[in-house]
Structure formats: structure tokens, C-alpha cells
């Protein structure tokens, strides 16, 4: 069913476009908030010491963004960005299921599981 394939592909493409636009706007807004007060020091990037814990966990990022903390808003935008390709794979699971393509519904589901594993593995 090439017609359906193409429709699925167009839906995926549009979703990616919307996702990246929204994410970029959120990151930009956070960036403006971050850069507007003067006298902020430049962080030391010359040695690796990890990002503060507030930007390492999804729940902490949500909480920070609700407090209108600029860096948490940037990180929230980055989370939206990371979620976009994951949504594309989710579209695949749903779309292939609708097209009764069991093999590719399963393949998409495997990719989705691997993606989610990345968020649930602890260091």
C-alpha cells in the first residue's frame, strides 16, 4: 500500500517540523531570559564536572521550568527536541498497526523500547 506509506511519511515529517520549531522557540525564550540580566559569570567548561543535578532529571527540569528558571526552560526545550524523533517512532508503531503490517509494527516497537531504555538506565 504505497499510498498509506506516503501518508504515514508525510505525517511523520510534519510532526518533526512542528516539534523542532516548538523546541527551538522554547530554547530561544529560555536563552533570552538567561542572557537578559547582566553580570552573569561564564560557566567553567574547561574541565568536566557534570551539569547540576537540576538539569539531569526529567522531573527536576519540569519543576524548574514551572518556576520560570531560565536554564530549566532551555533544558525543557531540549527535552521537547529529544521527544520529537521518539514521537516519530511512536507514529510508526501506530501507523504500521493500522496498515496491518505486524512485522513493522513490531520493529518500530523494538526501536521505541531501546529509546525509552536510554532514559531509564542509570549511570
Amino acid at each position, binding site marked *: 500500500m504505497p499510498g498509506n506509506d506516503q501518508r504515514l511519511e508525510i505525517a511523520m515529517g510534519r510532526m518533526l517540523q512542528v516539534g523542532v520549531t516548538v523546541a527551538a522557540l522554547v530554547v530561544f525564550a529560555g536563552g533570552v531570559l538567561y542572557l537578559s540580566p547582566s553580570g552573569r559569570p561564564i560557566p567553567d567548561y574547561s574541565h568536566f564536572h557534570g551539569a547540576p543535578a537540576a538539569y539531569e532529571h526529567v522531573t527536576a527540569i519540569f519543576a524548574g521550568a514551572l518556576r520560570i528558571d531560565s536554564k530549566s526552560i532551555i533544558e525543557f526545550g531540549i527535552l521537547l527536541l529529544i521527544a*520529537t524523533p521518539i514521537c516519530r517512532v511512536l507514529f510508526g508503531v501506530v501507523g504500521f498497526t493500522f496498515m496491518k503490517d505486524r512485522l513493522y509494527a513490531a520493529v518500530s516497537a523494538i526501536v521505541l523500547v531501546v529509546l525509552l531504555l536510554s532514559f531509564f538506565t542509570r*549511570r
Partner: protein
Amino acid sequence: MNILSFSLEICLTSILAGFLGALTGLGGGVVIVPVLCLLFKIDLHYAIGASLVSVIATSSGAAAAYVRDGYSSIRIGMFLEVATTLGALLGAYLVAKISADWIGTVFGIVLLYSAWASLHNTGVDPKRTRQDALATRLNLRGSFPVQGGKEDYTAEHVPAGFGIMFIAGTLSGLLGIGSGAVKVLAMDQVMKLPFKVSTTTSNFMIGVTAAASAGVYLSRGYIFPELAMPVMLGVLAGSLAGSRVLVHAPVMTLRWVFTIVIVALGGEMIFNGLTGRL
């Protein structure tokens, strides 16, 4: 220097890197990481974290144009994403196990390979040799628009292609790049897919592959928000501009100029890695 001019400087550099990445077809990631490390003296871990974010943005941002052309194949892409995402998890895991010097050395080698591969991209479709039973069973086929109709294709050498895709995924997770050059190698040279199908399908796969390492990067603190912000916005803007210009620019001349820049960056990454300066 204050934080505003520092961020603007990073952003402008990222625009340039994204522009260069789009024109050479290498992607913004392989350019921005060495620039952040070598010019701005930023630790490799922060550099690859910011780069990975920009890679996801570029891949998703280019999607609209590619979908319209109708060359990419969702089935082949999805099937190979099993390999690239698993590889990406391994690569992201390895970042904490390998020293920055070694990662930088591998980075330089991949950079040199990518530059070499991009110059040898002939844009000619590979000769198909045989029917592949496994590819048929997995439905790894499709068709793309040609003048006056459609042309069908089927993948070949599926296990070898899958294996190289796993390596591409590992490099993506280890280096924070899209590793488009290795992905195209697997599809174009090994699986004998038409050139346009390889490049567009690779673009879609890059975002999903990078998303697989993003979770690990996030929990390990490689993604520093105030650094990722100017890098992501800059690379995205630069690569969108680059892909527009690509249609009009005298491509071969530009490619040669940029290839020299990239070879220099790759050489310096290897040198700094081997001498323990990263």
C-alpha cells in the same frame, strides 16, 4: 568577556559550522565538536553533549524538505534504526569508560574518513547484483520517483548493512555526531540502495539514533543547558541556510575549500588526542 558576548560568539561559530556541515553533507556535529574543543577550549564531554542536541535539531529540521521529495524509505529506516539505536546506547555508555584523549583521536579519524567519503560521493546509483531473500522477507524495498514514473529497488547484503549501522550508531553515541557518512556507506555501498534513498533515509535515522544516546547524556550531565542553547540554535539556523544555498552554490569549489578546513580540524584532534591535550 561577558556571558552575552560569549554566547553570541558560540552561536555565530555554530551557524558557520551548521552551514559548512550542510554544504559538505557532513552534518553540523562533526564540525562543531572540534571547534568547541580546539578554539574555545571546552571540555570534550560538554562539546559532544551540545553537539548531540544540535544533531537532533538538524535532522528533524531537514525532514520537511526530504518528505516532499519522496525518496526516503520508512521501512528500511525503521529496520536499521534497531541497529543504530542499540549501537548508540553502547556508544553513550562507552563515553564514561574511555578517556577524552582517545575519544578525540577516534573523532579525528572519523572526521578524516567523512571528508574523504564526501569527496568520493559520486551521486551515482550502485549497480544491483542479485535478489536478496532476506531483504524480500523483511520487505526492505521501495520505489522512488523518476522521470515518467517510479523505479523499484530492493536492499542487498542485509546482515552486513545492519552490522555497519550498529557501528554507525556506536560512533554517534560515543562522539555526539550523526555519523551520516557511515550510515550512507552502509546503505549506498553495502546494501546497494539508490544514492538519494540512502542520503534522505540516513537523515531521518540520525535524529532517532541521537535520541537514543540523549537520555544517557542527560543523566550523566553532558548536556549543559546554557552551552547547548547557542550551539543548537546556531547549528540549526546555519544548516537550514546551507541547504538553501546548496542549490545555487558552485559546489565542487566550496567542497574543496571546506574539506581542507575539515582535514585540518581532524588532524589537530588526532594530534591533541595522541599527545594527551584534550
